[in-house]
C-alpha cells in the first residue's frame, strides 16, 4: 500500500532547538492481526494546533487514544516535555496534563455545568463535604473567560445547546490546567455558529500556549485552525505538512490516495 517511504518531516525545521510538548515515536497498535497504527511518529509543540486527518479507520483516533490512556500500544515511545512517559489509563494521562474532549461529549446530562466540570475531582470543604458554592464560583470564572454569555449555571447540561455543552467540556480541560488537549471531532454535532464559537475557543487556548491535537473529518475546520497537518492512511503515516504550504486538494490527495504533495518533496519551498 505504502510504496513510497514517509518523507522527512520538514515541518520540524521551524522548531529547531525546541522541546516538543508531545513526541510520539514509532507507535504500533494492533488489534488481533490488524495493524491499526503502524510505525507512526507525530509531534506537538506548545501553542500550536496539529490537525490529525484521515479516513475512518485510518488509525488517527487509535493513535490519539494511546496518548489519552484509553488504548495500549504494542510498541513505540511517548515523550512529554522531553521525558519518556508510560501512560496506562486515563488517570495517568491527566497526571501529565493531557486532557481529552471526546466526540460524544462525555457529560452527565442530569448534572449541572459545575458538577460536570469537577466530576471526579470535586472541591470539598474542610469536613469533606462537596463545596458546591465554591465549584460554581470557579465554574463561573472559567466559563466567563471561555463563553461570557453562558448563564445557565443551575440547569442540567441536558438543557444546554450543543455549543454550550462543548464549552463545558472544554472548560473542564482548561480548568484542570490542560497543557495538551486532544479534541476528537469537537464540532461534529454542532451548527454553524456553534462551530464558530468552538473555533474561537481553540484560538484562545492556543494563544495561552496549550498544544492541541485536533481530530476531524471536516477539512475546512482543520484548515482554518491547524498550523500543521499530520495525515494517516490505513494505519500508516502519509506525512506531516504545514497548513500554509498546501491546498485542500493536496490534503485530499494525502487522505484519499496517500500521496505526499509533489511540490513539498525536495527541494523544500522557500
Amino acid at each position: 500500500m505504502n510504496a513510497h517511504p514517509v518523507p522527512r518531516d520538514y515541518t520540524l525545521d521551524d522548531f529547531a532547538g525546541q522541546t516538543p510538548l508531545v513526541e510520539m515515536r514509532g507507535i504500533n497498535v494492533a488489534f488481533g492481526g490488524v495493524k491499526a497504527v503502524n510505525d507512526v511518529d507525530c509531534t506537538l509543540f506548545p501553542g500550536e494546533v496539529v490537525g490529525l486527518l484521515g479516513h475512518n479507520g485510518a488509525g488517527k483516533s487509535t493513535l490519539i487514544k494511546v496518548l489519552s490512556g484509553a488504548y495500549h500500544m504494542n510498541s513505540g515511545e511517548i515523550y512529554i516535555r522531553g521525558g519518556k512517559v508510560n501512560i496506562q489509563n486515563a488517570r495517568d494521562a491527566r497526571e501529565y496534563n493531557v486532557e481529552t474532549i471526546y466526540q460524544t461529549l462525555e457529560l452527565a446530562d442530569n448534572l449541572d455545568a459545575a458538577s460536570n466540570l469537577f466530576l471526579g475531582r470535586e472541591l470539598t470543604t474542610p469536613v469533606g463535604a462537596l463545596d458546591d458554592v465554591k465549584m460554581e464560583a470557579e465554574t463561573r470564572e472559567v466559563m466567563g473567560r471561555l463563553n461570557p454569555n453562558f448563564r445557565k449555571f443551575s440547569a442540567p447540561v441536558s438543557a444546554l445547546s450543543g455549543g454550550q455543552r462543548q464549552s463545558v467540556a472544554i472548560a473542564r480541560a482548561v480548568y484542570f490546567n490542560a497543557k495538551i488537549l486532544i479534541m476528537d471531532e469537537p464540532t461534529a454535532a454542532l451548527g454553524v455558529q456553534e462551530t464558530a464559537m468552538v473555533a474561537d475557543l481553540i484560538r484562545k487556548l492556543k494563544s495561552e500556549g496549550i498544544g492541541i491535537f485536533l481530530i476531524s473529518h471536516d477539512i475546512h475546520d482543520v484548515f482554518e485552525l491547524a498550523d500543521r497537518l499530520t495525515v494517516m492512511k490505513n494505519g500508516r503515516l502519509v506525512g506531516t505538512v504545514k497548513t500554509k504550504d498546501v491546498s485542500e486538494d493536496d490534503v485530499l490527495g494525502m487522505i484519499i490516495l496517500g500521496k505526499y504533495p509533489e511540490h513539498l518533496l525536495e527541494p523544500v519551498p522557500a
Partner: protein
Amino acid sequence: MADAADRPTDKTAAPAADTALDESGEPGLERQNAFSRALRAMEVDTRLLGMIAALLVIWIAFDLLTGGRFLTPRNLFNLSVQTASVAVMATGMVFVITARHIDLSVGSLLGVIAMVMGLLQAEILPEYLGFNHPLTWVITVAVGVAMGAVIGAMQGFVIGYLAVPAFIVTLGGLLVWRGAAWFVTEGRTVAPLDGTFMLFGGGVAGTLGEMLSWVVAVIAVAVIVYAALQDRRRRQIFQFPLKPVWAEWTNIGLLAVMVLGFTLVMNLYPVPQRAAQRIAEAEGIPIPPEGFDWMHGIAIPVVFVAIVAVIMTLVSKRTKFGRYVFAMGGNPQAAELSGIDTKKMTMLIFMVMGILCALSAVIASARLQSAANDLGTLDELRVIAAAVIGGTSLAGGVGTIYGAILGALVMQSLQSGMALVGVNTSLQSIVIGLVLVLAVYVDHIYRSRSSD
C-alpha cells in the same frame, strides 16, 4: 461569537431558544402568572407540589368516605408508624435506581436480618446477659446492621465486579435470603423480643411523649432556619443570584409549619388510660387520682425515618459518593472516564441498601414484637413503588430522598385508607397496582413537557 452560539442554529439547539440570558432556562416570565412566578422565586420543585396535592386529595377523599375517621390524630399516628419501614428502605432504593440498578432482594433481606436479630435477642443473648439487659438491643442492632452491610456488599460485589446484572443478582437474593430466613429457626416465629428493642416499633411506649416531641420539633425548626441562612450566606459571599428574601422566609415558614403541625397532631393522640397505667407501674410513677393525660407524641420509628432521611439527603447532595451515584445514572461512561471507580461505587451503593434493610428490619420486627420468617414479604415491590412514585426515574440519574418518603406515604395512605373503608385486600392490590402505573405515566408526561 459566543452570544451567537447561544441562539438556535438547528433543531438540536432549540432548547436554548430565547433563554440565553435566563438563569433557569425556563420560558420568559411575562408568559407566566403570578402564582407560578412565586413558585419559581421560591425554587420549589413542582413535582413535589404535585405529590403533596395528590396526598392531600387521597387524605381528604378517605376522610369523607370514612365519615371523618381518616384524618384523626390516631389514624395519622398509625399511618406514620406503618410507613416507617418502607420509607427507610425507599431512601436507599433511590440510590440504587438512580445508579441504574435495581434491588429485588430488600424484602427477603429484611426477613433474614429480622430473624437473626430475633434469635439473637430472644434466645442467644439472654443466655449470657439475662433477659432485657440494657446492652441486648445495642448488640442486636449492631449485628443486624453488620449483616445488612455484608450481604449488601456481597450482592454489590457480584453486580459491580463480576458484572452480573443487578436484576438477576437480587432476584437470586430474593429467593436465597427468604430461604435463609426460614432456616434460622426452621420456620418458628421468635418472640418475645427485648423490651428496649421493641421501642423502635413505635408502640404505646415507643414514642417521644408530649414534651420531648416539642423539643425535637423546635430543634428541627432551628436546624431548618440555620441551614437555609447558612446556604444563603455562602451564596452571598460569592455574589450569586439569591432567592428574594420573602421567598426564603416563606420556604422556611412552610417547612416549620409542617414540622410543628405534625408534632401538634401527634401530641393530640392520647395514650389510653390502661396503657398509661401499665407504663407508670413499670417505671414506678404514682398513678394520679384523675388518671393520666399523656399524649403519644412522635413515634420513635418516625424519628428514625427523619434521621435516615436527613443523612441520606446530605449524602446525596453534599458528598462525592452522592454526586457519583447521580453521575453514574446520568452517563455511566462519563463517570468512568472522569476517573470514578464505578465498580466500587456499585458495591457501596448495595452495601448502603443492605444497612438500610437492617434498620427497616429493626422497625418492622419491633412493631410486630416478634420475628417471623415471612416478615417483609413483597416489601421489595412496595419500596420500588415508593421510590418510583416519589419521582425516581428507572432510566437512572434522577431521584430525591424526600420524594421517596412521600411516595411511601402515598402508598401507605392508600392501603390504610382502603382498609379503613373496608375494601377487600384483593381490590386493594388492584388499586395500588393501577396507581403505580398511573403515577409513572403522569411522571413521564411531566418530564417530557418540562424538558422542552
